[in-house]
């Protein structure tokens, strides 16, 4: 068994071992005596039975002694439960919302995530509820489970002593994809957690931090202005001439490979009009940051996957809508935008609609208004998303093809 990383769960494990020891002992004793007596007093060995109507002493013994033992079992069970339930003061509170069939975690400051990222050694309190039916938040590695109930807030807490990743499962039957409602609890060092908490939605600010952290902004401007080196924004697709060390010159189109070469081996191709004075950043920038910076320079946009994709993951859309055309529990996002759909309105009448931006947006905010024929009306309302978030999701859906129909 791997080391238990949550102190209260260690108490639970100890209670379990205590109970198991006595339980197995009782089973072995009863079974052994039963089998032994059956053999020793078989009628071929013991033709005359001896009448023994009872024994008050024995009855008292095996009533009182087991009572004392099970009361101890109750006690260890209860104290370990209390340890799991007693939230320390000052714990960071994370909201948990369970729904068919995904989890949404909301952090102080409003960041939402589909995974539960927490700092190592930090007390975390979960304030949990459900959007639809009863689910149950279960982390087997931490011996932690608590139902999430619509209309109620239930709580749980933990503190993880070392980095690691743990499965979060749903433990209350909730329908079709109850077995697939799995996400991850990720304990990371505190500094990494702080960065994670601050990042990703402020992607541009993050990119700015990277260029500043690695010293690029000492010579390059991020907003189109001139400096010792070329400006770095919106470079993707731009053409220009570069001079080679052997005196030759070449026409290049700026792409990811060129930018990578420019950062790791800047002397190999000098942009025309600039001095050859940029140092190499070989082995100085982690790959993830390198990719983020390259992406920013190409698109001038966020340093991450298409913006709507992260939001779609965080809100759990992907647990019901695939991106590859397959059907999970709702229409696939692939080739959805601009397609023609048969939908049923609330009176039961059937209409044909084009899945344009307006339709997609309404499907997110009020999915029950028009239900695609053949689908069950189980999609929850996402009416708490603001207009910008809805637009981002719609843009993401459009990016999955075939496009078109982007009417206002």
């Amino acid at each position: 068994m791997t080391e238990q990383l949550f102190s209260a769960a260690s108490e639970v494990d100890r209670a379990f071992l205590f109970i198991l020891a006595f339980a197995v002992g009782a089973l072995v004793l009863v079974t052994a005596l039963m089998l032994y007596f059956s053999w020793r007093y078989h009628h071929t060995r013991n033709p005359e039975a001896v009448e023994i109507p009872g024994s008050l002493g024995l009855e008292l013994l095996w009533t009182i002694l087991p009572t004392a033992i099970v009361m101890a079992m109750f006690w260890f069970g209860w104290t370990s439960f209390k340890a799991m339930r007693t939230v320390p003061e000052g714990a960071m509170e994370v909201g948990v919302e369970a729904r068919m069939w995904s989890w949404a975690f909301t952090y102080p400051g409003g960041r939402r995530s589909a995974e539960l990222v927490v700092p190592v050694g930090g007390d975390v309190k979960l304030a949990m509820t459900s959007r639809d039916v009863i689910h149950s938040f279960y982390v087997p590695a931490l011996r932690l489970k608590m139902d999430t109930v619509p209309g109620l807030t239930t709580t749980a807490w933990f503190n993880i002593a070392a980095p690691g990743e743990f499965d979060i499962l749903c433990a209350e039957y909730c329908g079709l994809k109850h077995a697939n409602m799995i996400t991850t609890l990720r304990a990371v060092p505190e500094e990494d957690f702080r960065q994670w908490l601050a990042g990703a939605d402020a992607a541009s600010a993050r990119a700015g931090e990277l260029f500043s952290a690695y010293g690029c902004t000492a010579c390059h401007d991020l907003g189109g202005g001139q400096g010792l080196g070329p400006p770095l924004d919106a470079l993707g697709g731009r053409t220009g001439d570069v001079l080679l060390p052997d005196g030759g010159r070449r026409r290049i189109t700026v792409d990811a490979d060129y930018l990578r070469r420019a950062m790791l081996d800047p002397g190999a191709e000098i942009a025309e009009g600039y001095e050859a004075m940029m140092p190499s950043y070989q082995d100085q920038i982690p790959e993830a940051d390198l990719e983020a910076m390259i992406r920013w320079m190409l698109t001038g946009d966020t340093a991450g996957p298409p913006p709507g994709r992260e939001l779609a993951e965080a809100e759990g859309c992907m647990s019901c809508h695939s991106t590859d055309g397959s059907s999970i529990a709702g229409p696939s996002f692939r080739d959805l935008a601009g397609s023609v759909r048969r939908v049923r309105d609330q009176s039961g009448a059937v209409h044909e609609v084009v899945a344009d931006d307006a339709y997609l947006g309404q499907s997110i905010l009020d999915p029950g208004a028009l239900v695609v024929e053949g689908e069950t009306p189980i999609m929850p309302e996402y009416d708490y998303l603001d207009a910008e978030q809805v637009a981002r999701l719609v843009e993401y859906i459009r990016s999955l093809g075939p496009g078109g129909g982007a009417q206002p």
Partner: protein
Amino acid sequence: MNDASAAPGSFWAARGLASWLFTTDHKRIGLLYLWCVLGFFIVGVVLGLLIRLELIAPGPTIMGAQTYNAMFTLHGVIMIFLVVIPSIPASFGNIILPLHLGAEDVAFPRLNMFSWWLYALGAATALAALFTGDGPPDTGWTFYVPFSAVTSTNVSVAVAAVFILGFSSILTGLNFIVTIHRLRAPGLTWTRLSLFAWALYATAWIQLLATPILGITGLLIIAERVLDMGVFDPARGGDPILYQHLFWIYSHPAVYIMVLPAMGVISDIIPVFARKAIFGYKTIAFSSLAIAFAGSLVWAHHMFVSGMSDTAVMVFSLLTFVVAIPSAVKVFNWVSTLYKGSIHMEPPLVFALGFIFLFTMGGITGLVLGAAGTDMHTHDTYFVVGHFHYVIFGGTGMGLFAAMHYWLPKVHGRMYNKRVATWAALILIVGMNGLYFPMYVMGLAGMPRRYYDYLPQYTAMHEASTVGSWVVAAGLALMFANLWRGLRSGPRVGPNPWGAATLEWTLPSPPPAHNFPAEPVVDRGPYDFRGVRADD
């Protein structure tokens, strides 16, 4: 069933379907229940085998997720309401109780017939739930709200079936209580009652008092779905945890309805095959009452992580450990009866010893589940599935099989092959451990229940469990085939093939329709074997 070879003048004599369907003879009613129970048991077993076959590998194997969810719901509803709850009391309780009391029949024979008709009607309604509306329910047998309030499947019809079946149980309980109080033969004092009768008595009180709560809860579920009342569904202003309390106030005592009669069977069998009185008769009799009483106070141990208060958790955990003690004491008394006995290892005793082992295997994990801290981890995992199958199948199931091997020769007047019966028992014991022990292991490792799919690390345990299910199926097939053949065409038996001392063994096998030629006068206890011998 026994056709022309049945002894003339036995209760089998009257012929024709109507003489069975409209009978008021407790022995025939008991047999009608037995055949229905065994028939639905086979249906439930097939569902279980299909479930295990689906789970032999992760991902879809032989069915989709919706079908799987309906299958485990049906497996639970059929096994609990159509099989295990009526199993022993409605079958052997009906056949044997009046005989143990020296009575002609139960107190209300026509009500008894009506109770069977309610069972048949409830069963038909449950079947209707399969084939009408939006298909069989997919909520699990516990019908938790809000899921059961919002699913479009046939919840209302299934709950109506449970409501009707509940009345069959209530009326049987009422009938037995009055019978035991009022129809004991002269000399048959309370302290001379068989322990099977004591067990039926305790069970009958639970049936009478607890089942109405389930009935009312079922009506509220239907009202919520059909009339859109907000009782349990929070979207309509209701309280989902209230549902859980109401459901479990019946369904926990229900498990004692399931196990107490089986314990009564064991208490009757062991003395006969050890040739001595039970050790601690009064303790065992009293423990049945204690279990019935204390077992009514522990229901919310199914709800430790439901969101109810910590105080409630503490109270229900404490009471749960209280109810463990009388069950343990029974086990100690049974084993003590073997001490210095003169043991005849006949099939009823083999099944009874199998019960003791398997019930203990299941009961001890009840201690883990009753302790609040450890329950938090094991609740809603395969640990629970293993626990209740050990105690219900390894317990009540084996108790039913023991009762069949003990009493069916009396009912049919013929004996089955005893060696084959013993082999079947051993195969079942091995198979049940193969099927259910891996569930303990994977439950502790975090495998939740009611999962159509699972993470790859649980594959080996699931494979082992599925293979175990095939061994159990083989054992059941062997057992039923042996009983079928033996009871129809095996060697005839006299009144007392086992040398037992309770009153049914003074009558011919099969007994006459009117039971006793003259009202017996009882002057000895049920386990007093002086001068009692098995037929040669």
